[in-house]
């Protein structure tokens, strides 16, 4: 069974757009698929867009933190994009924080952020 979340490679960057509400098993499945991909094939960075998610609860937050930690261990720069304002407010009120994750407004801005980072590191 697959989570159905497309995991793409765009210009050496891993790009994921979560397109719809996922039930818990799909979230776990998606995490496994993503980890399999990013540990298997080298990439310059990872962007995950969650603009389609109307609700982000502590379960999804935990999975995002796990992905972020693993990306960190792999030295893979990670940007989370598209968090809806109402979701951001809710997470803050719940006392959940994204533990210093880099964020950007949308997928494109996220990719730009990663590319700028790569350029800075080359200098």
């Amino acid at each position: 069974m697959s989570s159905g979340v497309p995991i793409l490679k765009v210009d050496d960057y891993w790009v994921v757009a979560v397109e719809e509400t996922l039930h818990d098993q799909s979230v776990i499945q998606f995490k496994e698929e993503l980890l399999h991909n990013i540990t298997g094939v080298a990439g310059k960075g990872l962007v995950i867009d969650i603009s389609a998610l109307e609700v982000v609860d502590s379960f999804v937050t935990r999975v995002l933190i796990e992905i972020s930690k693993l990306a960190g261990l792999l030295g893979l720069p990670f940007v989370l994009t598209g968090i809806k304002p109402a979701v951001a407010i809710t997470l803050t009120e719940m006392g959940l924080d994204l533990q210093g994750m880099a964020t950007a407004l949308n997928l494109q801005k996220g990719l730009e952020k990663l590319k700028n980072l790569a350029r800075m590191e080359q200098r």
Partner: protein
Amino acid sequence: MNLKQTLPITSEYDIITARQAAREIARQIGFNTVDQVRIATAVSELTRNVVLYAGLGKVDIEVVTRGERQGIEITVSDQGPGIADIELALSDGYSTSNGLGAGLSGARRLMDTFFIESRVGQGTIVKVGKWKN
């Protein structure tokens, strides 16, 4: 509009059904977007707890009025193992399932009212409410 809805919680799919139902009712009675998300997220937390710790349960969503004010009241109940130490379960970061331990405490912060009753071996009832400004 259906002002009262009872939904069974038997699997993780029902978490999504329940939170969407609560959000829709909240929207229909005029809660703003942020409040709709607060309410849906609280329902997500409480119903996931039922799935994780009790297996089965139900959620009642109800529109309530007090004088001129309208609000929503949500009762999530199960006949699972119960919670021995409610104080502890409500503290940030406490989890018996490797979670963030933010579900109960988070739901409490997101809503205006929060009531929990639990007996070991008998089950748990969590009642949360929010009033429109």
